[in-house]
């Protein structure tokens, strides 16, 4: 009775292949014998043989050679046999298109069977053959399937149309199946048929939308008020899975007024009590998206969905609760204040997997405020002593992050210092890194910290990051630490044993800083460090040593100003993700993006972005009509607009470390544009160092000091900016420039009421900006959200372009503007020009 899938068999088919082969030929023989037999009991023997075939198929043995025998045996009235045969045929037809033709006959016959179930089964199998030259046989049965009296057959047929579309889109469209589906979608009484029509239509029209205007219109029609209301009013008739489908569609619907919003929310209110987490999350998405522009209601939604989400987290299987917790994590990160009293729900349980614990630690960090910090930090300190080392590390980092949020710093510093006394290597290592960051933000604590840090033997610290942190503190506070020069000296003595370049870089800088403060004691160590650095095989270490050496030779006091200037405390540490990316992830609520914490374009290819895709918005970006003389090939641009977005984000992420560094000496000091402008008079080597952060962002903390040039960024006021009235820029160049240039200005601008009123389609703004010599290269979106890419060119310098990304929300009357410029010094002037042009919208 047991199928021949012995547990002893190796999972890979190769070892079983030899025996598999002889068994397959054996099966072939037996099937052939049975094919014509009409003896009683034949079906039972056939069943056993078919089972064997299917089980071979499952474990990966190739049984395609049995195709004709299987087909011969399939002339039977036994449904179980039929089903097994269909499964087999569906699996191998693609590889044997000629043999597949053999099956057409009996499948077509079965499609006309009396029993609706046989009709449905046959139709489903017919559609799964995936053989292009057989599509002609499909059209007839599919057409009658869609009109079948049985809901089951219609259900199969409505998905069958989609299968046909994937085999041959042209045949599907030409046979007018989409419009038949549409009719069923609006009129069928069977909810599952309606749901399947919706799935098929969505997929077909999304794929067609690239080439057909009509498909775009049809796709938009799915989001029309009558359709949405038709579906929502009968939502309870649908299965839970179909409900998810309908709710997802509803989340894209834009209601005309707030009454409609409340109607929909009232209608769906009880869906939040559903035991199926997928239904609840889909409902929440509708609520969140509907209320996006209504601040106070949006906040109430957060309050309302809290309890259902927490229930799903604690009652589901570990996997389900992880998926829900990730969504909760997203909401907590967006509005930590609203969750600050729920912090106990985010405490870790000892038996939770580490991916859950990590999420919870981040949430605890985010919700910490004046009232709960003490308790949260107490809890985190428990985890720090945990046997689970990665979580212990994360917990310590969390404590540090909370300290940087400025609550109850006093107590936290005490606790961090207690960590150092625990004498666990990894605890010490993590804590040192944190103490360093804390000191950068709160220099006033240096006294307490240095006393403890001074007691740590550098021999006990092995991790590069921690060692670098310790060395940084030794250099920075060398005047307060009695032993600093000698500890540094011993570290320099062991230069060759230090494998991490990061540590060696820090050591160079620390020794030099120490030298400025206590020259007689450090002189020897400095000499040794510079000599070792110059001989170092690592390029960065070598270059830094050489630079220091020349700088000291040139002018010691200048060197001090460069390497060890007075510092201001860091006010804000840069966020790792830009707000643009976070918003995009939020737009893709209830999708994998939330779990990966990445927008979908980062992990899917374009055709698989699914119903949540952001590219829908981008896909409809159209090239500005009026700029036809710019030789723009719209298709080409559309294909690349995703790359454009991608490179923007990457650029921003790369910028983070350097921002971080500059903030240390002067908050809001813009490295990318201003420092270059301010430095032209200086020596070559100095300029090359200023460039360093962009080349080697990973060594950012070492460069902190280097960027601490107390030079004011005095930009001479630019001459009045004139723009070329007819600039020329092709999309490819635009995209490349957008990817390469840093953002020189980013600001939010309020729009005037008449401006928002006038902005009904993107074209309005296009023409308007053109009259101000600013050209649009791409635009898109629907009210209330529009997105534009503009460019302009300096009249006197054809190489100097300005690139603008402009996001406009007409309901909030806000525009977000990002400007990139070839000539950064003129971007302020251009920005003024751009904003005045924008504010004039609707005035004329």
């Amino acid at each position, binding site marked *: 009775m047991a199928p021949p899938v012995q*547990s002893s068999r190796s999972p890979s088919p190769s070892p079983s292949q030899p025996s598999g082969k002889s068994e397959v030929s054996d099966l072939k023989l037996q099937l052939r014998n049975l094919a014509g037999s009409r003896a009683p009991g034949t079906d039972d023997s056939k069943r056993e043989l078919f089972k064997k075939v299917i089980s071979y198929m499952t474990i990966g043995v190739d049984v395609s050679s049995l195709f004709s025998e299987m087909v011969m045996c399939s002339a039977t009235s036994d449904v179980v046999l039929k089903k097994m045969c269909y499964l087999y045929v569906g699996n191998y037809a693609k590889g044997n298109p000629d043999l597949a033709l053999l099956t057409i006959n009996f499948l077509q016959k079965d499609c006309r069977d009396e029993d609706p179930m046989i009709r449905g089964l046959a139709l489903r199998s017919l559609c799964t053959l995936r053989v292009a030259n057989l599509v002609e046989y499909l059209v007839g049965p599919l057409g009658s399937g869609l009109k079948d009296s049985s809901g089951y057959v219609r259900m199969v047929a409505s998905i069958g149309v989609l299968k046909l579309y994937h085999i041959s889109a042209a045949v599907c469209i030409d046979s007018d199946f989409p419009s038949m589906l549409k009719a069923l979608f609006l009129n069928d009484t069977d909810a599952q048929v309606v749901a399947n029509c919706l799935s098929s239509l969505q997929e077909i029209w999304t794929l067609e939308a690239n080439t057909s205007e009509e498909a775009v219109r049809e796709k938009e029609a799915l989001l029309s008020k009558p359709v949405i209301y038709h579906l929502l009013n009968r939502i309870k008739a649908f299965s839970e*899975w179909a409900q998810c489908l309908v709710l997802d569609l509803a989340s894209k619907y834009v209601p005309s007024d707030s009454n409609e919003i409340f109607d929909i929310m009232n209608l769906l209110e009880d869906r939040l009590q559903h035991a199926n987490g997928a239904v609840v999350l889909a409902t929440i998405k509708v609520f969140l998206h509907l209320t996006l522009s209504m601040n106070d209601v949006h906040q109430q939604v957060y309050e309302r969905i809290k309890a259902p989400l927490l229930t799903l987290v604690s009652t589901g299987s570990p996997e389900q609760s992880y998926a829900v917790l990730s969504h909760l994590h997203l909401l907590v990160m967006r509005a930590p204040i609203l969750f600050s009293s729920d912090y106990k729900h985010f405490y870790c349980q000892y038996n939770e997997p580490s991916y859950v614990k990590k999420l919870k630690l981040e949430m605890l960090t985010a919700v910490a405020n004046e009232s709960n910090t003490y308790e949260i930090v107490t809890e985190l300190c428990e985890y720090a002593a945990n046997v689970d080392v990665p979580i212990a590390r994360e917990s310590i980092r969390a404590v540090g992050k909370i300290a940087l949020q400025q609550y109850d710093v006093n107590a936290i510093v005490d606790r961090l210092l207690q960590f150092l006394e625990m004498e666990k290597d990894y605890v010490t290592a993590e804590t040192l890194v944190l103490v360093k960051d804390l000191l950068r933000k709160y220099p006033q604590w240096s006294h307490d910290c240095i006393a403890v840090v001074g007691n740590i033997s550098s021999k006990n610290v092995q991790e590069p990051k921690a060692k670098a942190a310790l060395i940084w503190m030794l250099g920075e506070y060398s005047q307060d630490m009695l032993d600093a020069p000698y500890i540094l000296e011993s570290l320099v003595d062991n230069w060759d044993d230090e494998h991490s370049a990061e540590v060696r870089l820090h050591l160079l800088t620390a020794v030099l800083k120490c030298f400025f403060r206590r020259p007689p004691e450090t002189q020897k160590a400095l000499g040794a460090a510079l000599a070792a650095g110059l001989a170092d095989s690592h390029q960065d270490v070598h270059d830094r040593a050489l630079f220091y050496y020349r700088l000291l030779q040139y002018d010691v006091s200048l060197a001090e100003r460069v390497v060890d200037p007075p510092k201001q405390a860091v006010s804000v540490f840069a966020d790792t993700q830009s707000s643009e990316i976070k918003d995009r992830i939020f737009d893709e609520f209830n*999708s994998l993006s939330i779990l990966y914490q990445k927008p979908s374009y980062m992990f899917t290819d374009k055709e698989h972005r699914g119903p949540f895709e952001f590219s829908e918005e981008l896909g409809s970006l159209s090239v500005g009509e009026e700029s036809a003389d710019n030789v723009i090939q719209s298709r080409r641009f559309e294909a690349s607009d995703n790359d454009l977005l991608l490179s923007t984000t990457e650029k921003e992420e790369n910028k983070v470390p350097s921002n971080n560094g500059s903030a240390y000496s002067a908050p809001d000091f813009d490295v990318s544009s201003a420092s270059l402008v301010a430095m032209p008079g200086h020596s070559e080597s100095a300029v090359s160092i200023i460039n360093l952060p962009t080349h080697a962002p990973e060594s950012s903390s070492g460069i902190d000091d280097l960027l601490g040039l107390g030079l004011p960024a005095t930009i001479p006021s630019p001459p009045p900016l004139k723009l070329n009235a007819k600039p020329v820029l092709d999309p490819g160049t635009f995209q490349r420039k957008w990817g390469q240039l840093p953002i020189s200005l980013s600001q939010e601008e309020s729009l005037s009421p008449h401006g928002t009123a006038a902005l009904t389609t993107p074209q309005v703004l296009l023409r308007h900006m053109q009259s101000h010599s600013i050209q649009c290269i791409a635009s898109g979106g629907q009210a209330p959200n529009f997105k534009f890419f503009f460019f302009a060119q300096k009249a006197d310098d054809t190489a100097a372009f300005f690139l603008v990304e402009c996001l406009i929300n007409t309901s909030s009357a806000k525009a977000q503007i990002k400007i990139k410029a070839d000539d950064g010094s003129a971007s302020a002037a251009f920005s003024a020009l751009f904003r005045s042009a924008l504010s004039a919208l609707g005035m004329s």
Partner: protein
Amino acid sequence: MISQFFVLSQRGDNIVFRDYRGEVQKGSAEIFFRKVKFWKGDEGEDAPPVFNADGVNYVHVKVAGLLFVATTRVNVSPSLVLELLQRIARVIKDYLGVLNEDSLRKNFVLVYELLDEVIDFGYPQTTSTEVLKSYIFNEPIEVEAARLPPLGPAAMFMQGTKRMPGTAVTKSVVANEPGGRKREEIFVDIIEKISVTFSSSGYILTSEIDGTIQMKSYLTGNPEIRLALNEDLIIGRNGSSVYDYRNSAGAGAVILDDCNFHESVHLDNFDLDRTLMLVPTDGEFSVMNYRMTQEFKPPFRVNALIEEAGSLKAEVILKIRADFAPSITANTISVHMPLPKYTTRVSFELEPGAVGNTTDFKEASKKLEWGLKKAFFFFCSLSLSFFLLLWHIHNIQIVGGSEHTLRAKLTFSQESHANITKEAGPVSMTFTIPMYNASRLQVRYLQIAKKSRTYNPYRWVRYVTQANSYVARI
């Protein structure tokens, strides 16, 4: 849209493999298994249930030691896929009676039949065991349930109490009784998982009960059922601070923070008299899930103490007190406590006065076994590779009101510099207590609409409490 669905055994063998859309390459099962098995070498972390490899998203759940996996290239809703996988596992269990590798291998053709109807071209169709009945033609081949390790929450009823027929919950919805007639019966299980964290001074830091009312119906003709809960049940707390203990009167109403319901449940009378009305579908499903943070009496008090006793020695005292009625017994209790990494030897000592003990230290397995003659057999062990103290209380049941103490003497290989309490613990405990529920949520009655005078199906209403995260800090 799901591209493929497959079930893998613990060793990574394909038991069932169904390709719905042909978008993902054939070797995906092997790629998946390798990823899960060797997830990021560092510190042996578990693979998350959802991950992406080369543009393919792998979503999986673990049920009964099997991996249920779906692959897709589309940015789908992860909850939907996870719920669907869980549901497929449940539907298969409804049909096979028992879900494990053996039953799946014996019935894989039936499983294919189910999969054909549950998902079409990657879109979920129906997961209702009842609806599916009319499309399924294979008869399940039954697997001997008795020989198998118990699985799933319902399995806990198979031990401890004799009131339940052990096989009742492991029978298929389509199989018939030996007599040819189906036995009319319905099971309602109130399963609660409790999480408690005690501070080092024994004070309760956090506590939560996650409960579910699970139903499995073998009734024919879909009669309507009324399930009445505590009349004074309160749902939702006013204000968002759910951890406000002051308001909760000890013996007052049961207050649930929140709950959700199965689709088939009608709540028309729920606000009025706390009755749930439903027509149960075939198979197993959760009628209601609930969450409670109201103060409750924890079934066990755990006290743990670790003290230095000389330069290389320390003593651990673990005390467990059962705080429930003597008529109730708990079983499968074990206590875990991580020890300092430099522990080399442990000797155990149980309650004073217990005579006739035998101890046996096995050098090879680095385990210390300690037995009590007569009816008890306590099992204490030290697993030196994990530096974990395990105290299994296997063959005895802890009776309500009783107290048990374990003393262990530790020997260290080096002197500890830091505070020893930071190196050991916390103590965690697992247990199962049948016929006990901490929340005091009750099924007052279970009414089945009568078809005739003689119609009187069996009704089983059962309670059980399990530890989820039961931790005492030291």
